[in-house]
């Protein structure tokens, strides 16, 4: 179950030249606006015909310019969730959900419909019209409608871009459930590092129409070379953690690769696994074991790479066991501390600096 994409297309302003594979799980197409993310998704869906290239889904060729294959949109068997939901305004939620079965001339499977409705929590909306729904509700219905088309691939084109923070928080858990339960590859377009860190298994970083990095999420996000494409403010690694205990003072204790983390407001059962994103600019480095600090979270590791750019900053990639943390410090401190690859180091993370939205299953 994979998607192979290889595309070349000339636009007036820029060139799209992209090659990547999307395995099972969530593949995030990540990049700033104008990087060509949506164009790639549209080409996969057949809504945009590239000048040249080849798109193969699970062995079925959807597009091949050399072989003159261009499967029409309605025969590609994709579930496409658009930024703006695009529910049919003249149909009820139920009619929207059943639209694909209706036009494909097959009988809907009630059990499947019930499962999707339950997973997305849209049971109370079924009789309503799209105009009466909130943005988050609409997006959930749109996801349900796409899933009930029995797609071989799900395309999510910034499904949360038009939503405010509260609505995003409402949708994210459903997307996580989807990733774990849907059993089909998902291509997920995003320009928010926090969403990518929380959802993606693989990341494809796009910059000006080119793939600049492609790999497992944790590797890509902790790679100093990717930081310019992510944006310095948002850069940061994703690590896995397991809940060890919820303490009475409101902090939860998490076991990670580099030691224990204490974070506030973590929900989930003891033993559950989470993803935690640690922004590079929220990390302080220390050679010795720090003492007399208010920060609770100290992770031990070893410097694997040091990258100094043109500016005043330096990016340090630290290995803790199998995983990596990224720290952004000033070049001056890197020089003053004499940091070098291979050095043992302690990374200090203020517990409050790990944002709520960055913790996810």
């Amino acid at each position, binding site marked *: 179950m994979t998607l192979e994409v290889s595309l070349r297309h000339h636009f007036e302003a820029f060139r799209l030249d992209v090659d990547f594979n999307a395995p099972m799980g969530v593949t995030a197409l990540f990049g700033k606006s104008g990087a060509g993310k949506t164009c790639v998704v549209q080409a996969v869906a057949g809504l945009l015909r590239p000048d040249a290239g080849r798109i193969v889904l699970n062995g079925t060729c959807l597009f091949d310019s050399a072989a003159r294959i261009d499967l029409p949109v309605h025969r590609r068997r994709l*579930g496409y969730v658009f930024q703006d939901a695009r529910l049919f*305004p003249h149909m009820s939620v139920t009619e929207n959900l059943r*639209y*694909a079965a209706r*036009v494909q001339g097959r009988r809907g499977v009630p059990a499947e419909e019930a499962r999707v409705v339950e997973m997305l929590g849209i049971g109370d909306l079924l009789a309503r019209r799209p*105009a*009466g729904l909130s943005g988050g509700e609409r997006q959930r219905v749109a996801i349900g409608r*796409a899933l009930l*088309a029995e797609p071989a691939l799900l395309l999510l084109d910034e499904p949360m871009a038009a939503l405010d923070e509260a609505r995003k928080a409402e949708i994210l858990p459903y997307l996580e459930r989807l990733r774990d339960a849907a059993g089909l590859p998902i291509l997920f377009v995003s320009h928010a590092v926090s969403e990518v860190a929380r959802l993606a298994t693989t990341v494809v970083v796009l910059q000006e129409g080119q793939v600049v990095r492609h790999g497992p999420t944790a590797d890509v996000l902790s790679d100093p070379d990717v930081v310019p494409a992510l944006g310095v403010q948002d850069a940061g690694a994703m690590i896995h953690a397991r809940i060890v205990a919820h303490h009475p003072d409101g902090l939860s204790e998490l076991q990670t690769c580099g030691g224990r983390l204490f974070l506030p407001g973590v929900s989930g059962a003891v033993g559950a696994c989470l993803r935690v994103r640690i922004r590079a600019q929220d990390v302080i480095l220390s050679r010795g074991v720090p003492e007399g600090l208010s920060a609770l979270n100290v992770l031990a590791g070893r410097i694997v790479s040091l990258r100094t750019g043109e500016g005043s900053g330096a990016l340090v990639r630290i290995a803790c066991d199998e995983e990596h943390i990224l720290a952004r410090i000033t070049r001056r401190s890197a020089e003053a501390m004499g940091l070098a690859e291979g050095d043992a180091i302690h990374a200090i993370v203020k517990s409050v600096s790990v944002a709520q939205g960055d913790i996810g299953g």
Partner: protein
Amino acid sequence: MSGWLGAEGWAAVLLSLKVSIWATALSLPLGVAVAWLLARKEFAGKQVVNGIVHLPLILPPVVTGYLLLLTLGRRAPVGAFLEQTFGLVLAFRWTGAALAAAVMAFPLMVRAIRLAFEAVDPGLEAAAATLGAPRWRVFVTVTLPLILPGILTGAVLAFAKAMGEFGATITFVSAIPGRTQTLPSAIYGFLQVPGGETQAVRLVIVSVTVAMGALVASEILARRVGKRVAGQ
């Protein structure tokens, strides 16, 4: 009723209703097709098609009627062909009146439906395609329901225009009482004879009532459909 209007007036009202209903019903599918073409397709000669469609709106109606007579009269090539092949005679028949009314009302109909097409979000049609609907299915299940208010508006406008059509009709089919004398030409006829004013005023009342009735009915229908389409 026929006493109040007189046999001649009553015949004119019935004829006008018949002519307008046929003119509207028969031109509607073509109107939808042309509106779709103008709203959604780019092709060579699009401006020419657009111009021809709008011509009856800007030409003097007499000219339109005369052009119809020149092409579709019994001695004209197309008219003779229609008579020999299908036995269809248009000139100086009620069928001709229906054609003249349809031609004159066509631009109004197309404009209304074209606006409705342009208001449909192509994104919804793309979404329908990704869900597995072939093009014609997208049109029937998404586009058509969404433009229904526009089609209704276009049809009512065309009907009202057909009810009032005078210049092209009288030029193409004349105003033979009981055969081709429509409501407007009957009103004109009564005004030409001494003492005919009472009859003319009565027909004017009928004319205003029918037009207003059609307009109100379409408003109510369009609002109802519009609400459904807007998802409320």
